[in-house]
């Protein structure tokens, strides 16, 4: 049973009060009586009635004055209907009643049934009002919670993205907060071998669900880049991870760009993002790069298509997610690929600024959608502006120890694993040479690749001099990797020497050998890019020797230790 309804009746005529009490009082209705306006206001404050019936003319304070006081004491969530009783059926009185915010009035003498009907409908209205008010409050509370969660999601998302982000002057990026919240991510890091990896991604879905996927993606990306894995391996690993993690309808449209200072090529692995543009500022030539792969997280494994382009300081790559293209102006027209292409064709110094500005102008006046992600990568593989960037390692090196470790890799194995990061990590684990990881990575990867490419697969690095040749080289490499047999043995040995440690790296392969003079020892006179790698290795090592017709190589790397 609900609490009894309380009705306040104020009338200076005793008979009238008695009559109303008799008529209204029941098990469900408690009647509170007042004999003038002052008492009515006092009882109103004390008893909190649900409805008031006020006589217009009363001594001390009339009904209209009392009603005004009562209404002004109510808070926004309270509503108490007021019915006036009057003997005067004139316009002026009725108008005064309305002005005092009367909900209804009834003229004496009145019909009890009419009054009861009015009271019932007003009480119903009161409950409706209060119910709605409560719902509104609840909705407001939900909205606040949602906004809070929105903020939390955006901040987590941003932290994930920025935590290990490598700021380098050749990469400019603009991600609006809304774009972040909509699941756009952008990650940049470099490998120990100075390859620069940039990953732009756009998760389906919004808010929390989108930021959940960002965390494992960033984890895999930064972890694998630091260990020196290739873009291909990183992307396929992220795909596998997301496939096992995300529900069927969610995926990550993404592109991984790898800038390789050794080959001076840029490798674009595009998986479901809108077209990218590669602009050569010198010639004005624009190359459109179209996605050739399914977005990440949909299938467990796929045949990843890579796209290679020569990279110089004049080459600028533009990446964006669909927000910028779909941005609408007041007329509902989208900025579209055409808006982007117009910006590329201007002679403006900064195409990046032009694009942001163009997009902003396009949308001015329309409701701010604020969902913009735009990336510019200057493919400067000559000056390598990111070479000396990144945090100095906090890692403490271990006193030089005596140890030896060897590994052997079969050609068949190389189809499945990337041995260089594995070898590098084992050295880091044992000796903690993180400070020298770039140099050691460079030495191991260069020597190992020579063993495989020249020694076992008989490839001629001359092929890599032209753009088509570069592609051909890798096709041939893939083909021979399947056809040929052989293995490479790698032996690492470490000894303490005066003031430090000496790491000796020996490799020998089962191939027929190769003209190492021709392939790798164009040290000084030759500046073409395939010769550079070995030249660098030579400068990093105490000594570097090839023997047995190029099937054996021994490199000695020394490092100082102060103890």
């Amino acid at each position, binding site marked *: 049973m609900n609490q009894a309804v309380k009705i306040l009746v104020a009338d200076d005529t005793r008979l009238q009060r008695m009559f109303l009490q008799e008529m209204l009082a029941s098990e469900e209705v408690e009647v509170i009586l007042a004999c003038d306006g002052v008492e009515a206001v006092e009882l109103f404050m004390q008893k909190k009635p649900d409805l008031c019936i006020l006589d217009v003319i009363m001594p001390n304070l009339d009904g209209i004055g009392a009603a005004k006081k009562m209404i002004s004491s109510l808070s926004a969530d309270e509503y108490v209907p007021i019915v006036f009783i009057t003997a005067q059926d004139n316009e002026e009185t009725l108008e005064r009643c309305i002005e005092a915010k009367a909900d209804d009035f009834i003229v004496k003498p009145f019909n009890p049934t009419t009054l009861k009907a009015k009271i019932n409908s007003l009480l119903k209205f009161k409950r409706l009002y209060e119910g709605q008010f409560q719902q509104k409050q609840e909705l407001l509370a939900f909205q606040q919670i949602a906004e809070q969660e929105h903020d939390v999601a955006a901040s987590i998302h941003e932290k994930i993205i920025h935590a290990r982000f490598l700021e380098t002057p050749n990469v400019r990026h603009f991600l609006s907060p809304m774009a972040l919240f909509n699941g756009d991510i952008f990650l940049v890091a470099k490998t120990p071998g100075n390859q620069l990896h940039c990953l732009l991604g756009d998760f*389906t879905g919004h808010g929390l669900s989108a930021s959940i996927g960002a965390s494992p993606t960033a984890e895999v990306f930064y972890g694998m880049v630091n260990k020196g894995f290739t873009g291909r391996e990183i992307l396929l690993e992220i795909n596998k991870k997301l496939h096992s993690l995300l529900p069927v*309808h*969610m*995926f990550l449209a993404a592109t991984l760009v790898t800038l390789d200072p050794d080959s001076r090529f840029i490798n674009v692995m595009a998986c*479901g993002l809108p*077209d990218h543009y590669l602009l050569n500022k010198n010639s004005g030539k624009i190359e459109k790069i179209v*996605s050739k792969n*399914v977005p990440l997280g*949909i299938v467990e494994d796929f045949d990843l298509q890579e796209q290679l382009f020569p990279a110089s300081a004049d080459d600028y790559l533009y990446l964006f997610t*669909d927000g910028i293209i779909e941005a609408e102006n007041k007329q509902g027209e989208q900025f579209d690929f055409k808006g982007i292409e117009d910006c590329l064709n201007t002679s403006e110094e900064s195409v990046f600024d032009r694009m942001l500005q163009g997009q902003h102008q396009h949308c001015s006046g329309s409701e701010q959608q604020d969902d913009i992600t735009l990336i510019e990568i200057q493919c400067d593989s000559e000056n390598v502006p990111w070479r000396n960037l990144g945090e100095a390692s906090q890692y403490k090196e271990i006193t030089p120890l005596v140890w030896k470790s060897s590994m052997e890799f079969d050609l068949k194995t190389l189809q499945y694993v990337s041995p260089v990061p594995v070898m590098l990590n084992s050295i880091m684990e044992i000796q903690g040479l993180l400070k020298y990881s770039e140099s050691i990575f460079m030495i191991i990867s260069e020597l190992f690749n020579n063993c495989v490419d020249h020694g076992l697969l008989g490839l001629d690095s001359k092929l890599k001099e032209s753009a088509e040749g570069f592609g051909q080289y890798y096709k041939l490499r893939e083909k021979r990797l399947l056809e040929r047999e052989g293995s490479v043995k790698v032996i690492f040995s470490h000894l303490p020497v005066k003031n430090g440690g000496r790491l000796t790296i020996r490799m020998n392969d089962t191939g027929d050998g190769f003209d190492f003079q021709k392939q790798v020892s164009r040290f000084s006179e030759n500046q073409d890019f395939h010769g550079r790698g070995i030249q660098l290795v030579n400068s990093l090592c105490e000594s570097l020797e090839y023997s047995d017709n190029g099937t054996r190589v021994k490199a000695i790397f020394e490092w100082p230790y102060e103890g």
Partner: protein
Amino acid sequence: MSVNVELKNDTSELSIKISGRFDFSVHQELRKATDKINSAVKRVIIDLRSTDYVDSSALGMLLVLRDKIGGDKQKVRIVNANSEVKKILEIASFDKLFTVA
């Protein structure tokens, strides 16, 4: 926006026609359609003749349909997409996951 769902050819073929914008707003109806897929349904035809826009949540819904029928490219056909919609399907390489005609 409307979704028209029909079972054809002795209930072995589920035909789904989406008019207007194919985005999150049709998600309820598409879920109902996906629930109709049982072992008797051998093929799903998605008719995009009257669809003028698809977004990434639509692509997600298509993936759910594909998953429900066993992930077989041959079993889900996307037909009659206009050039703009086709472009979006192409960017996502959905022709590798669905039969796009």
